[in-house]
């Protein structure tokens, strides 16, 4: 009994620790370092993670995402559901109710008009809003009363919570942005560099691509928060320098996106000044196999289009053999350390959508060789490379210039060589590879190579739009100026049919099952995409910084109101 009391005595200060800091501005300065500096504080004009992160200190959506990808109310009183009457029974509209007494950081009240304005701001016909997809299918946003807003859709929506959720679609203040509609949006630097928000902080000073300072918002809805009086967000340098600034010198409290080589990860954490926080969202590093022929002998405009199926990779057995030859565990360990896990699927999270497929994780070179034999690829001249009908089994493998990717390329090349595949490696500058310039031959959309590797993910938690990128009509080609997302040119009517069912489906369980089935079809089923590593967001946190929850589904700073100094 005495021991019990002693234990309780120990626990009491722990239990009340946050309460001890429960006073706005009591914890001094929060120092953040982003090696990619912040360019603008308006998510509707940027789309860049760093910019959305920084803006989330001021701007808030109606609801955000927690660490499991579930919606949590922010400016809304509650997340509308069918049960609480917020979502209409026919799923063609959703009604949000704002928290009462919400104030902007300039002291004026937040009303439904601000929400209505935000919609017209982003969907203005002369504008170029980066978050336009958030309002796809929205036919009207109306203020029912000063605190209630109704969003109507053109069709029943399985996921009616896309508009105004997450840090990429926050509410803007109508009074501030009223003159910034359409083409004028871009010239409103004053507004874009210091948006008035409802979040825990207000902009003090913003220097483009350098540093931003913020002060606690005097009108923040929780009178005890934020614990920090000031935030300094420094940009520049590189990921390693940022990690060292937190974990080695202790000059900063938090460093964003510090993906550094695993040995250095281990070295820096042993110093004991802090550790890495990792949030695993939807980011998957994958090898995409080109199912069409990229041969330079083909006339321009038909090269890498479905008019010419790939002479080697159209055979499922070859694709399966290439997958079998890869040891994904080794790639994850060597390239990413604690920020990577081997994976077989395109959709590794949230848990309800992730299929538990582990069939690709065991490397089997013998089985790979047997499959290639079966497919008719044999090494007839003894040079170590297989041939069929006089054509060598030779592939070009391209990716961006990036030390980790080059290591992975070398490893994959060695495994593929072992099963008799000759591999030529190419590296392309990321600005060109992802530049989607229709005139460049080196973009990932043009895919003038046999195999390429990169990482991708989707916005929000619902993977339906992400899977919809893999239908036959989303194949990039000259007819759409190479601006489409089905990079591997995968085309399967069964997939398109299942996707159409998913788009009609509303029942959560049925949707989850369909999503898992669609995912399996492209990955371990048809082997059109070879997922390699499920990548987490690796950020560095000083030991003295409390309240940090690694939530990959929303901006990393979107919960900075809850952060405090551990004393």
């Amino acid at each position, binding site marked *: 009994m005495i021991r019990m009391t002693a234990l309780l005595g120990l626990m009491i200060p722990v239990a009340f620790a946050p309460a001890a800091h429960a006073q706005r501005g009591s914890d001094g300065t929060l120092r953040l370092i982003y090696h990619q*500096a912040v360019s*603008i504080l308006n998510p509707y004009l940027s789309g860049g993670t760093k910019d959305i992160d920084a803006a989330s200190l001021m701007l808030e959506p109606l609801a955000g995402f927690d660490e499991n990808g579930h919606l949590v109310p922010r400016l809304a009183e509650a997340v509308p559901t069918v049960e609480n009457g917020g979502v209409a029974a026919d799923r063609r509209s959703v009604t949000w109710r704002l928290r009462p007494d919400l104030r902007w950081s300039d002291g004026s009240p937040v009303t439904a008009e601000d929400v209505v304005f935000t919609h017209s701001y982003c969907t203005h016909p002369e*504008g170029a809003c980066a978050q336009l997809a958030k309002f796809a299918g929205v036919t009207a946003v109306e203020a029912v009363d000063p605190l209630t807003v109704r969003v109507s859709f053109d069709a029943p929506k399985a996921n009616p919570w896309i508009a105004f959720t997450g840090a990429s679609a926050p509410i803007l203040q109508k009074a501030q942005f009223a003159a910034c509609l359409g083409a004028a949006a871009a010239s409103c*630097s004053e507004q*874009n560099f210091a948006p008035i928000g409802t979040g825990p902080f207000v902009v003090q000073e913003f*220097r*483009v691509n350098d*540093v931003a300072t913020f002060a606690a918002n005097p009108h923040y809805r929780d009178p005890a928060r934020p614990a920090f009086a000031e935030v300094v967000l420094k940009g520049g340098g590189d990921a390693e320098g940022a990690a060292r600034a937190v974990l080695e010198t202790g000059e900063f409290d938090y460093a964003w996106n510090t993906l550094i080589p695993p040995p250095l990860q281990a070295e820096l954490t042993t110093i004991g000044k802090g550790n890495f926080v990792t949030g695993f969202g939807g980011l998957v590093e994958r090898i995409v196999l080109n199912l069409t022929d990229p041969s330079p002998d083909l006339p321009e405009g038909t090269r890498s289009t479905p008019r010419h199926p790939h002479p080697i990779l159209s055979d499922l057995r070859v694709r399966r053999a290439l997958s079998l030859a890869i040891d994904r565990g080794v790639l994850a360990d060597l390239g990413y350390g604690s920020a990577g896990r081997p994976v077989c699927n395109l959709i590794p999270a949230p848990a309800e959508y992730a299929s538990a497929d582990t069939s690709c994780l065991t490397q089997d070179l013998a089985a790979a060789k047997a499959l290639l034999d079966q497919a008719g690829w044999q090494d007839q001249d003894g040079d170590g490379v297989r041939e069929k009908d006089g054509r060598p089994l030779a592939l070009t493998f391209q990716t961006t210039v990036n030390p980790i990717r080059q290591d992975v390329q070398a490893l994959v090349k060695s495994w593929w060589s072992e099963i008799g595949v000759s591999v030529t490696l190419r590296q392309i500058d990321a*600005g060109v590879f*992802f530049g989607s310039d229709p005139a460049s031959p080196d973009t990932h959309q043009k895919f003038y190579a046999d195999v390429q590797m990169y990482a991708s993910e989707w916005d929000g938690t619902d993977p339906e739009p992400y899977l919809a990128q893999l239908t036959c009509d989303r194949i990039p080609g000259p007819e759409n100026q190479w601006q489409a997302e089905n990079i591997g040119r995968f085309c399967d009517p069964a997939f398109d049919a299942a996707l159409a069912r998913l788009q009609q489906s509303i029942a959560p369980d049925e949707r989850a099952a369909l999503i898992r089935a669609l995912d399996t079809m492209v990955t371990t089923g048809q082997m059109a995409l070879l997922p390699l590593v499920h990548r987490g967001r690796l950020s560095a946190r000083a030991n003295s910084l409390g309240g940090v929850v690694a939530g990959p589904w929303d901006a990393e700073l979107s919960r900075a109101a809850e952060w405090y100094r551990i004393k």
Partner: protein
Amino acid sequence: MRRYIARRLLISVPTLLVISAVVFLVVDLAPGSPASQIPQTIPAEVRARIIEQMGVNEPALWRYLLWLRQVFMIEPLAALDATFGTAMAEGQARITSWQSRGPVMEVIAERLPQTLAVVGGGYLLGAVLALPIGIVAALRPGGLWDRGLGLVTLLGVSLPTFLTAALVSLLFAARLGWFPTAYDTTLRVTDWASLGQQVRQMALPVGVLALANAAVIGRYLRAAMQEVLPQDHVRAARARGLSEMRVVLVHVLPNALIPVVTVIALGLPTVFGGAIVTETIFKVNGIGAALIGAIRASDLPMVQTIVFLFAVLVVLCNLIADVLYAALDPRLRHG
């Protein structure tokens, strides 16, 4: 002299126009697109619309003419507005960065102070250090001082700043913690403590740049001194029994400095261009860091404007160097 300067200034106008066209086109034709900065999560149609609105798809000639107008008319007016509170450039489209959607000139103005402080400081300190290095080394060629300084300047010339900067940052800032690893551009010097902070954060980048500059200029000066030392007027000065100090400082150094001043003047534009690597490593976020960041993000208006301003400074500094040369060397003035 005045006519000479006027003529040179007039010639520089067509020169700058040609440079502007070359800069604009070369940067424009470089591979890479600002679309690479738009995340993969944004659908292709939306990306295309964003790019369209930035004006990326307009014909290059049209964008060049627009940019020329902005560089030569709107931006100078905007600068006057900012200085005198007028509104001559109001409503005119200024050169706008594709990264921040804000005016390029404001970014440059924001970054000039730290670039001048760090890169300019490094240049100035380098030039000041070069004087004793060059003089002492030249006086006793092959002597102990000459060899020691020769080794140091050889290291300074041959070790690139991207290596020395990374090394000293790792050793003195990260490992030993004597200096900050990140330069704080918001620091305002108001008292002794903040002055100390400013000196501490400038020490490493300025030191690295000063070493490189002192080495180059010091070696020039040594060579120039050695050319002057055996000349007749120096011998005559010695024969008159002047002290060695006087001989060197009054009769040798001014003559040896003539070519060195030219070298220093010609190198001045590099101060504005910033030190890309050094600025990035120490997170000074000056103009050099802005330039490399803009190149990575394919932010063409920013790249074109910085490179062009750099070209303007090169032309101007060439002119200054020529004028200085004439001023320092009477033979050129009267010849």
